[in-house]
């Protein structure tokens, strides 16, 4: 005991670390700017290519099924007000012609086996939209319809994946809607800022010589890691709120789905990124090395996660790789919540992955962090 006979509280040490981090973050203009400006600029850059408040797109329909169920389906879709049915054709080729000629914005093909597809439990799409993808606005709107939940009883239970409609974009297959882009951007921005910040968090102290005094104090590795985690968690949550609000007011991102669940998933994703960042920080030789390692993580996160290219269209090996990235699971979670209205039960595998990823990286970072100078 030292002579003043202090109690030794872990809580007090963790608090000391994160209060210190907060003060440092507040003073560091560049970091502070990154917290606010990166989401703002990215969202404006990407976001203005989207606008989903589209209604009454003229479409043509080919109903090859001609049953009670198919007619109900058409009525349900009409009820969304996104489309107006202006013509009925009897052959799919006529739809192509009409779309190409610009007479209608899209065509809806209800196949002969519509009823069979509906009753089957596999995930074959019920019907096909053929869309002029070059009109980003229309395409975006109809793409949102892809998740249109159609059931006879019009109630969806959590474990039942509702049947969907396949949307086939004739042009510009990379179409996005706010519901797609904003969560994707959320993932990219969180990955970028959080891994960058935390990757340098420990190396910086080492480089500036602070480590010599820090490890001479009674602080433990775990306390240090938790103390570092908290400020970045707060930053992450600020960014999430900022992005969702901006998305809502600028791009009419609808506030749908379970919001508490959405925040919970964001939090898990933030944890996973901070864990990874801290692990990088423990192993990186210097700040530059930490930055390079972060980019090494950021790039596949953008390219392979399903944000840029559709996951299903990627080669098998790329898919395996993508499965290891927190971003892939995050995209799945947010799309599940925002597009499908999924509940926690249906999202378990991805939730567990993120949780496990966080625990593993934190544990590794704590174990690998040496309270030594050499």
């Amino acid at each position, binding site marked *: *005991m*030292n*002579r*003043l006979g*202090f*109690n*030794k*509280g872990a809580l*007090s*040490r963790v*608090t*000391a*670390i994160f*209060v*210190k981090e907060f*003060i*440092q973050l507040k*003073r*560091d203009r560049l970091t502070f700017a990154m917290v606010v400006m990166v989401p703002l600029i990215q969202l404006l850059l990407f976001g203005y290519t989207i606008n989903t408040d589209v209604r009454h797109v003229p479409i043509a329909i080919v109903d090859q099924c001609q049953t009670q169920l198919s007619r109900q389906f058409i009525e349900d879709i009409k009820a969304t007000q996104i489309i107006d049915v202006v013509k009925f054709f009897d052959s799919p080729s006529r739809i192509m012609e009409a779309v190409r000629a610009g007479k209608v914005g899209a065509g809806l093909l209800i196949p002969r086996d519509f009823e069979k597809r509906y009753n089957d439990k596999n995930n074959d799409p019920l019907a096909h939209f053929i869309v002029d993808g070059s009109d980003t606005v229309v395409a975006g709107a109809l793409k949102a319809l892809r998740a249109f939940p159609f059931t006879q009883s019009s109630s969806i239970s959590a474990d039942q994946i509702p049947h969907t409609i396949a949307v086939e974009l004739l042009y510009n297959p990379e179409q996005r809607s706010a519901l797609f882009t904003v969560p994707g951007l959320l993932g990219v921005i969180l990955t970028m800022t959080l891994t960058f910040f935390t990757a340098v968090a420990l190396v910086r102290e080492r480089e*500036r*010589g*602070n*480590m*010599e*005094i*820090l*490890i*001479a*104090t*009674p*602080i*433990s590795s775990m306390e240090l890691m938790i103390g570092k985690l908290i400020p970045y968690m707060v930053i992450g949550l600020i960014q999430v709120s900022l992005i969702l609000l901006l998305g809502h007011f600028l791009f009419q991102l609808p506030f749908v789905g379970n919001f508490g669940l959405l925040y919970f998933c964001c939090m898990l994703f933030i944890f996973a990124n901070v864990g990874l960042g801290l692990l990088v920080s423990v192993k990186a030789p210097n700040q530059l090395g930490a930055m390079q390692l972060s980019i090494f993580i950021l790039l596949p996160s953008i390219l392979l996660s399903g944000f840029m290219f559709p996951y299903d269209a990627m080669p098998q090996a790329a898919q395996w790789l993508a499965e290891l990235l927190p971003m892939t699971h995050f995209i799945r979670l947010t799309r599940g919540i925002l597009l499908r209205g999924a509940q926690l039960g249906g999202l378990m595998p991805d939730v567990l992955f993120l949780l496990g990823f966080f625990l593993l990286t934190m544990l590794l970072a704590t174990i690998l962090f040496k*309270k*030594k*100078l*050499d």
Partner: protein
Amino acid sequence: MKLIDDVIVVHGLTKRFGEFVAVNNLDMNIKSGSIHGFLGPNGSGKTTAIRMMCGLMDASEGDIHVLGLSMPEHASQVRDQVGYMTQKFALYEDLTIKENLRFIAKVRGIPAALAKERLNAVMIDNDLVEYQSQLAGSLSGGQKRRLAFSAAVLTEPRLLILDEPTSEVDPNTRREMWAKFFKLASVGTSILISTHLMDEAERCHYLTVLNDGIKVADGKTDQLKNEFSHQVVLVEGENVTPLTDSIMQMKQVLAVAQSGLVLRVIVSKEEADPVRIVSENIGPKFSVRKIKATIEDVFVAATQTTKCRLDKE
């Protein structure tokens, strides 16, 4: 509290960086309640040895006991009781003096009410009150040293390890700091202090001198001076500077240093009459007499491997 005679006991301590041996088979005891000076030229291994004692580096060989506890096994217990001041400023440059001290108080577990009291006390003690809201990065060298010292004594530790605490500190402040060291020692605090400055070395109760990682002198400061085996002569006269080279040529002479208007010459202990041989070398215009050795002479004789000319700071 367990009473122990030696707060630090080091035995056979060795540190290698690859092929290079920074600390070589060092034995060292630091008596409880004493001020123990750690001397040695640049790169002699003082900081490295200190870091191993604080558990910041693993020793390649040897054992270390600090406050009766073996290191590095008991590092966390030891850290609780040791105040360590690093040679290079290691507090946060982007925090103010007060924020830095508050951080240290908190990680060291000082309760909030007491922390406030201690913070004010150390800031007053070290003349930091008027700069308390200034960022540490913008402080002068001496102010930074005082802040680092304040942080080290914040918990009133039983053992203080200070790595060159007074470098960059002006003479008056240095004297004040030494007054504080003595005051701390008088209430039972043990202090290990590394330094380059001879006047500081003179003030220590005990000294250990390191050269190229090897201990070359060790013991009570007075004893080291009294038992100095070589002989020191003082050369006085008008313009003694040009004599330096010719005196250094003499094979019996170990070192020559100019100190103000006089030259101090260290002559090997084998020489029977050092005054005569130096006089003969320089002629009758100068007076030569034998004097008592100082710690500087001890240091020079112990640490110089090749004959050198010393220019006093």
